[in-house]
């Protein structure tokens, strides 16, 4: 249990700092409300009313977001591997190379199917 104390303290500090900086600003800051301050900024023009659901976003953005998540998670798995790289030895190397190759297959598929071209 003693091993994890520093992590908890760090988590507590981070959480405390985050909540402090948000809440203290909200409490101590002056509230000078005016109509235009809360409206969205459109280069000085009255903002055009967006449709109720916030309007439909073209599917291309969603596609790009998905691709990003796939390769982002791949990087997340690389971090712990990089930390314990010398302990794992060749076993770790082979394991991680196969993992990267699998993701590369997905990358090749997307590239060929044209997922990376924009329109």
């Amino acid at each position, binding site marked *: 249990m003693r091993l994890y104390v520093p992590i908890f303290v760090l988590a507590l500090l981070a959480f405390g700092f985050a909540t402090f900086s948000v809440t203290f600003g909200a409490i101590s800051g002056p509230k000078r409300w005016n109509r235009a*301050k809360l409206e969205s900024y459109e280069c000085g*023009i009255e903002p055009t009313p967006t449709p109720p659901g916030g309007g439909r976003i073209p599917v291309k953005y969603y596609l790009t977001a998905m691709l990003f998540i796939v390769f982002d998670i791949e990087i997340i798995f690389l971090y712990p591997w990089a930390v314990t790289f010398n302990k794992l030895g060749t076993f770790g190397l082979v394991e991680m190379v196969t993992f990267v190759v699998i993701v590369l297959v997905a990358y090749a598929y997307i590239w060929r199917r044209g997922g990376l071209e924009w329109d």
Partner: protein
Amino acid sequence: MGVEEKLPSGLLLTSVEKAAGWARARSVWPATFGLACCAIELFQTGGPKHDLARFGMERASNTPRQADLMIVAGRVSQKMAPVLRQIYDQMSDPKWVISMGVCASSGGMFNNYAIVQGVDHIVPVDIYLPGCPPRPEMLLDSILKLHDKIMNSKLGKNRDREITELEEARLGLSPLGLAVPEGSEL
């Protein structure tokens, strides 16, 4: 501001004012509100020779959200007035306005239907800067004067008292600061 306004009778405010004023004056971010010829002088002031960055104004913020100072650089046309007011409203407090150039301060030589005769018809102005266009050194001088104003501005209750005093003093004066006999047309 919020908390110290609630403190009874402006307790321990003077030191807070000095600290707050000093901190605010050091990094005033201008909102790029370049309209006409004065905007070109504003760019030259931001350029390498006159270097606006020496005063912490390196980063000209394009959104009013992160701007503290609006330099109205150029002639404000009737069509531009609502846009100027919208940008001013969307700037977060504390905010200041420098009306750069004669056209912004009083309509200048364009005394006609198209130009708002002085930007103080739309937004409260802190510093009026003459010149057509004002030289970069004049703009830097007006920024230094603005820094003095920011450093010496009061907070909370002192600020309210200061405002009421200024108002009474101003109401007594005639518009031209002359002791004008009653009933004259001015």
